[in-house]
């Protein structure tokens, strides 16, 4: 299983789709937005603009890393029969899936760290060591529900749909979840939707930690509910698919 995990991580990191959308794009957005909105404005929770945007874009990149490492890949491997091939080895089916989720989350780390490095270099963002660790740790763990969502999608739809589906979710979650612009800048109806999205939950946990506060329970609940719901859907879909010819 270790070797499978290492191979999965390696191919995740070398995937051009990952590099463009999870690494280049969030860093680019960070630089663009921080110029557009001004480096000294404030949007959320009294956080300085560069810090708030850093958390948003780190979350954003992390979301794409776990999406691109799960849904399209699982759907494709289901289609080609590679997952079936692995079932003919002693490797338990469950650990194949765990490897996928963990590998996608490992690939989220460089994407997040690079945004932080950009923020430090470009705008002199500084946090104490403990806050950095808590922030990155929380953002990283917070990608788990999204990885499970990608996992479920990979088992629910075919490979020709999976990539488009996570792409739409990626942009939708970014825009409506308050990562591109503050939730308060959105129409009221969209704010209500935004509040229950896992992307907002992830961003909000990060913003609170960056501001030296305790994350809101509501955001943790949103993430937990998404995580559990997606895990259940994923497990059921996985079992149904495995029983097919």
């Amino acid at each position, binding site marked *: 299983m270790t070797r499978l995990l290492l191979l999965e991580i390696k*191919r995740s990191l070398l995937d051009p789709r990952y590099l463009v959308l999870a690494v280049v794009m969030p860093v680019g957005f960070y630089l663009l937005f921080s110029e557009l909105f001004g480096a000294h404005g404030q949007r959320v929770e009294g956080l300085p603009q560069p810090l708030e945007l850093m958390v948003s874009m780190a979350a954003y990149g992390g979301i794409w890393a776990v999406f691109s490492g799960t849904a399209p890949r699982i759907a494709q491997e289901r*289609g080609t029969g590679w997952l079936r091939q692995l079932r003919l080895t002693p490797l338990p089916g469950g650990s194949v899936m765990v490897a996928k989720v963990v590998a996608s989350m490992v690939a989220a780390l460089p994407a997040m760290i690079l945004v932080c490095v950009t923020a430090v270099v470009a705008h002199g963002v500084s946090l104490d060591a403990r806050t950095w660790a808590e922030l990155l740790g929380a953002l990283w763990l917070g990608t788990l529900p999204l990885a499970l969502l990608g996992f479920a999608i990979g088992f629910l739809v075919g490979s020709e749909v999976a990539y488009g589906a996570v792409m739409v979710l990626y942009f939708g979650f970014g825009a409506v979840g308050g990562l591109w612009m503050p939730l308060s800048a959105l129409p009221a109806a969209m704010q209500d939707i935004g509040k229950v999205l896992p992307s907002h939950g992830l961003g909000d946990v990060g913003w609170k930690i960056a501001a030296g506060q305790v994350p809101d329970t509501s955001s943790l609940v949103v993430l937990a509910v998404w995580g559990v719901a997606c895990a259940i859907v994923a497990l059921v879909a996985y079992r149904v698919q495995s029983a097919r010819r």
Partner: protein
Amino acid sequence: MITMLSEEAPRTGETVERAVSLRGLTKSFGSNHAVRGLDLEIERGSTVALLGPNGAGKSTTISMLLGLLEPDRGEVRILGKSPRRAVAEGLIGAMQQDAGLMQGVRVGELLDMVRHLYQRPLPMVELIESAGLESLLGRRADRLSGGQAQRLRFAMALAGDPSIIVLDEPTSAMDVDARHAFWRRMERLAEAGRTILFATHYLEEADAAADRVVVVAQGRVIADGSPAQIKSRLGQRRIRLTSPEAAERLEGLAAVSRVERTGRQVTLFTADADATVRDLIGLGLAWRDIEIGGVDLEDAFISLTGEVR
């Protein structure tokens, strides 16, 4: 399905376990009755061909044999154990028809990863040598030709040093040379005492490679015997000629099993073309434009299974 390893212990009190034992195997997909009460016992060390037309239930049978599908009814035993357990212990290795490979990794990495999933894998050099992968190790696994990918699948099937090897339409993506090389490799495995079961819809392949041929149609075993026996039943020849003679006279010719007539065009199905032609000449019948050829397996099955279709 998540594998559970806590299944039953091997049964005692039986003599040497058969390599494969399928009893009353039944599987339907909705209204499609893919396998209908299939029985099959395979002795250790034999090479058995599962021969049948497309849709005969071969792949479904193999999927159940490998534990990928649960039978609706019936029982599968691999060396006396459940399929999942046999797979988990590396007793059985399989190569599937067109099974995908992991994308974005190299052949060598992939094979090494698969090897490490087994407790007692074959040495890497031995795998590379027996599958002929020497020149492909640095290639991306998703950029191989059909035949090259099949060699990699073969190496993966062999990785755990299994005593039973199952192959579903193994040569379908190969050209003639690759096919030849493939069966030579299989021969070596068989000589080493391994049990080999392969599905094919080519009679010639079954004849050349197997020491026993099991014919499957409509989800059942309809014939089972040595390649020579099966060939004489399935390996019919077709004689086309133009003749004004009455059908009854032609039907009476040696070895002829069936006569089809379209105007003066006659087609004779025969188990022994030589005998039929000798008879044709000996009896002094009127005919011309003779043409002798093989029949495809579909036609052979129709004559063997009669009303089954």
